[in-house]
């Protein structure tokens, strides 16, 4: 800054006062006994006092006891340490207590004795309040998360208890209906007209149907509440196991199951998906002359898309959205049996995996179900 040609500027008390009067920090100097020697303009503004009125007073004259005590204690600590000390202090402001970060340091005479203490305080109230607000919001959020989790756990427990009760208590009366109908058919066949026996068989058929619905509902509830695992497994092998369960040798169906389809997900739950999709394919190809059911995989921009396709009865695309709702049926009970829960289970399992499913069909030509088992980007669309 110095050019060498300008006359030297004398920096004295006035200049230094001008400097400390034009800062937003609060600056003051007290003697070792706590009497004010000097304050800056910001100090005057803050406490609405004139410097002439403050000089000679102590903090105990200006502030409440506990606040003044704390200032004094910090002064003494700075004097004792002999070097600058940084502390946080509280002082009253227009809108409640303000927080300052204060640097205090002693001034020493030639003999090395402290004769005064200087303080520079910066108001950090806004930052403090923001921090406090963040902490409060965090605490609130955490509390809310804990509450929601507890509520969810409670409702899962309830659902669990409900499903358990359903599996036990709703099936028992069905066994009686079915069993005693059978007893009547066996022991009283001679007393019952052919028509009466037919009605008993209808009762039996319906109890069987209701038992199937209860089981399907239990599967749906299990697909919802069981812990989701993420294992690597061979979907080809799983599909072949399911086919072995459902395929009746009396019907000839061509199964085209691709080899080595690797999948990532919960094998127990994906088994439910395949049981339902392959079970449907099997069911809806019952009236097809040369039934073909295909299971394959097609990677689509990094996501594995599995497909179960048949050439059976198919469906009208205008019902494609509705078919994943529970109890939604697209065929009459006389045409094809079913409880209308299977695809709801499929949908639930795939959703829990973070995957997607779409259905495609043409009446009389067949249906295809495509699904993924892994979360995909939001803009990813299953084709």
């Amino acid at each position, binding site marked *: 800054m110095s050019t060498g040609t300008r006359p030297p500027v004398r920096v004295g008390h006035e200049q230094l006062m001008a400097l400390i009067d034009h800062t937003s920090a609060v600056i003051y100097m007290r003697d070792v006994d706590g009497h004010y020697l000097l304050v800056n303009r910001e100090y005057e503004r803050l406490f609405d006092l004139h410097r002439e009125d403050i000089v000679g007073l102590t903090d105990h004259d200006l502030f409440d006891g506990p606040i003044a005590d704390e200032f004094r204690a910090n002064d003494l600590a700075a004097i004792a340490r002999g070097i600058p000390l940084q502390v946080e202090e509280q002082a009253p402001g227009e809108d409640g207590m303000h927080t300052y970060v204060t640097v205090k340091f002693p001034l020493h005479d030639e003999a090395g004795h402290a004769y005064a203490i200087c303080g520079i305080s910066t108001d950090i109230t806004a930052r403090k309040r923001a921090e406090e607000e963040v902490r409060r919001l965090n605490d609130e959020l955490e509390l809310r998360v804990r509450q929601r989790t507890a509520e969810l756990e409670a409702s899962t427990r309830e659902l669990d208890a409900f499903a358990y009760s359903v599996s036990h208590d709703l099936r028992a009366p069905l066994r009686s209906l079915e*069993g005693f109908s059978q007893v009547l058919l066996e022991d009283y066949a001679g007393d019952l007209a052919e028509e009466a026996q037919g009605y008993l068989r209808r009762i039996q058929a319906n109890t069987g149907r209701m038992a199937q619905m209860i089981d399907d509902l239990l599967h749906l509830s299990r697909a919802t509440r069981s812990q989701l695992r993420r294992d690597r497994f061979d979907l080809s092998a799983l599909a072949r196991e399911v086919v072995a369960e459902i395929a009746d040798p009396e019907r000839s169906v061509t199964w085209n199951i691709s080899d080595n389809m690797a999948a990532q997900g919960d094998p127990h739950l994906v088994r439910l998906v395949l049981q339902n999709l392959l079970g449907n394919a099997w069911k809806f190809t019952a009236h097809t002359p040369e039934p073909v059911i295909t299971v394959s995989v097609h990677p689509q921009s990094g996501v594995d898309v599995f497909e179960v396709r048949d050439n059976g009865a198919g469906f009208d695309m205008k019902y494609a959205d509705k078919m994943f709702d529970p109890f939604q049926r697209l065929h009459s009970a006389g045409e094809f049996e079913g409880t209308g829960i299977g695809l709801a289970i499929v949908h639930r399992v795939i959703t829990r995996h973070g995957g997607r499913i779409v259905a495609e069909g043409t009446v009389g030509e067949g249906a295809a179900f495509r699904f993924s088992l892994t979360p995909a980007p939001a803009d990813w669309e299953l084709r």
Partner: protein
Amino acid sequence: MTERPILLVEDNPDDALLTVRAFTKNRIRNEIVVATDGEQALLRLLPAEGEALRPALILLDIKLPKIDGLEVLRRIRDDERTRNLPVVVLTTSNEERDVVTSYTLGANSFVRKPVVFEEFVAAVNALGVYWLIVNEPAPLG
């Protein structure tokens, strides 16, 4: 074929009647003793005094009044007088935890009662053939 009785622990009288019928239909003529709750079953198997029942087979429902089936099973396995008796859990549930707990507590088999009576008759036949004819029981202590 053993002449020892079968203990059926079943609180639902309809189910008890149908189970007895299923045994009869399969020409299994062992006496069938019915206990209608867990407490009664334990009183028959582990009485404080008097003669204890030593059945050839115990068919045990899980959901029972007073003392449930899993607790009955636990006590049967805890007592050396009944430890080796074959216990088949015959119940409505196929909840995984019931299946797992039953085996953990030492059930010999777990059978879910089918709703269709003819299937139930077939299951009872299989149980009777296996546990009363094929299987060699532990000698009575």
